[in-house]
């Protein structure tokens, strides 16, 4: 996949005198590929709807403290007076608890729901950023340097891709915990924050390889192009060739891969938390709430449906948005 023809602008930067006429001629139809893709996205109704849903959840996560203050509750206070002796909440949806309270502990559902959006988004975005950076750097190095570097990195990619992701994620949790002294010796807060970083580590560790493979393939074909040869011929240092010449041409695969990674990571985080190997109390998280709420689903369906709707809506919107972004960037779908 090659986007546009950056070859024509490379020379222009070097000769300021010739720059004006060339640029002037190019302006009327001179849109960058990213700009074209973005314009196409803005016209895509599905993409706009999904983007607004994602934005809604981001705002929810960012404004969580404000929203709960508005409600007058917080996510950790127990209200044992609001549950009966069997643990069922005695109140439903009302003015002081907008979405009722949790069974057993009586913590506020609304507060836990808005705060639950936070770890999902933070973990997914951080893991995407880390995974993307590693993937791009590894792919660039393997594709551009070739030889032994390529062989080692390609082998590493094969290796990571042949590890069973879920099993490894599950296996890593007790190992990291026992490295820190075992789960019995950790305070809940310490355990929760360890899990948080383990999740980011695991997701980005398994996430970089796929992107690196794609980038490597792209670079293999790009490095034979004239603008790269020209840059090398005039003695541009390798680092600059990689990041100034090659990287701008890799925007499409990077954006596509990142936008498809985010929903996958939200899914994975909530899934692992559901299995009990992700986030733990006291961090409120949707996956964990689902696991607890399955025990109460007949008596208190709202408790289960809140995180279910949260994850489903967020992942669905992110995934469809990712798909729309891919269509917008992929030249094959150009009309």
């Amino acid at each position, binding site marked *: 996949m090659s986007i546009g023809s950056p070859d024509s602008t490379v020379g222009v930067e070097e000769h300021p005198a010739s720059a004006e006429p060339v640029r002037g001629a190019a302006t009327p139809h001179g849109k960058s590929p990213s700009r074209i893709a973005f314009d196409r996205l803005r016209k895509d109704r599905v993409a706009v709807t999904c983007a607004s849903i994602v934005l809604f959840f981001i705002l929810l996560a960012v404004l969580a403290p404000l929203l709960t203050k508005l409600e007058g509750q917080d996510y950790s206070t127990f209200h044992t007076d609001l549950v009966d002796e069997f643990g069922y909440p005695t109140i439903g949806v009302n003015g002081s608890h907008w979405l009722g309270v949790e069974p057993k502990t009586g913590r506020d559902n609304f507060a836990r729901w808005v705060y639950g959006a936070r770890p999902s988004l933070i973990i997914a975005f951080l893991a995407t950023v880390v995974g993307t950076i590693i993937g791009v750097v590894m792919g660039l190095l393997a594709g551009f340097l070739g030889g032994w570097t390529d062989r080692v990195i390609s*082998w590493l990619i*094969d*290796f990571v891709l*042949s*590890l*069973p*992701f*879920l*099993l*490894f994620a*599950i*296996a*890593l*949790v*007790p*190992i990291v915990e*026992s*490295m820190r002294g*075992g789960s*019995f*010796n950790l305070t809940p807060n310490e355990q929760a924050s360890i899990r948080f970083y383990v999740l980011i580590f695991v997701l980005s560790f398994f996430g970089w390889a796929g992107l690196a493979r794609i980038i490597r393939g792209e670079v293999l074909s790009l490095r034979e192009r004239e603008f790269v040869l020209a840059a090398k011929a005039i003695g541009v240092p390798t680092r600059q060739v990689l990041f100034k010449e090659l990287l701008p041409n890799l925007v499409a695969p990077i954006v596509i891969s990142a936008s498809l990674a985010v*929903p996958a990571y939200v*899914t994975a985080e*909530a*899934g692992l938390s*559901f*299995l*009990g*190997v992700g986030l733990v109390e006291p961090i409120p998280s949707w996956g964990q709430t*689902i696991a607890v709420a*399955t025990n109460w*689903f*007949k008596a208190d369906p709202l408790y*289960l449906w809140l995180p*279910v709707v949260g*994850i*489903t809506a967020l*992942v*669905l919107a992110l*995934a*469809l948005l990712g*798909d729309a972004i891919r269509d917008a960037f992929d030249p094959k779908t150009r009309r």
Partner: protein
Amino acid sequence: MLYFVARRLVSALSVVLATLIATFALFFVAPTDPAGAICGERNCTQQRYQEIRTNLHLDQPKVQQFAEYTAGIFTGRDFTTAGVTQHCAAPCLGFSFKNDRPVTDMIKTRFPVTLSLVVGYAVLVLTIGVFVGSMAAKRRGTLGDRALMTSTLVISSVPYYIVALMVALYLTVLYPILPRGEWTPPSENPGKWIAGMLTPWLVLGIYNCTAYARYSRGSMVETLSEDFIRTARAKGLSDRVVTYKHALRSGLIPVVTIFGLDVASSLGGAIFTERIFDLPGLGQLVLDSLNNYDLPVIMGTVLVASVLIVVMNLLVDIGYSLIDPRVRLS
């Protein structure tokens, strides 16, 4: 061809070896305390702790431990706990002190469950998924095709465990339309086996059919526009023969590739399905072992799952190169 197979074999072996080293390093060399983890943190006496250390040879150099572990896989080894020596026959993947059983035994008893699950799943995706995909490819661009592709995209964007959980809770518990998931060995009572596996099969199969329908549609669309299809049509062959005999055969190749890897990774434990439908398969084994810090079991399962993936990868690659000679060149 031989050169290709040999090269792939060497790289597969290197990946297996690296996985072995990596899992071993994770569980035994990293600054963890396997003996403490195995012994438990609540009622672990100093004597038992030391005993586990000596029996696991944790007091020996790491390289020797690794060599013993690897040798155990091929020749078996002995473990002693509380004065009783137990033989762990080859392939020995370690010994679970929590359950007082060799890990290989535990994996063997759990494997049929996961295998049953995967077999039913494979049948569903390869029939319904591929059929729907090729039908859509034939009717490319029609309203039906677009509706189908949009719905598969939407369904496959909802996390799998949410779908499975909702089906389990609402359709098998609250409104028992479908039978609850339950494990009965097929040798014991085939009818009960099918009844217990039916819901997991349907959920796992239909959810993943969406992905298979899209793969096979994409690959069929590409194949249907190739020259040999035009030739077949020009020869006057019927539409059915062209689609299902000529196009499907070559259109299925990429689908089978994905299928191979998919099956391999599911065999390592269809964790969510097993957890939600309460099937005692490999995934459930890992989750159980996690709860009581039974590290040798987790390590053994991870190893088995990785080897399955590597072997499947190898088979797919070799199979692919047999069908399509162009692959061998790259």
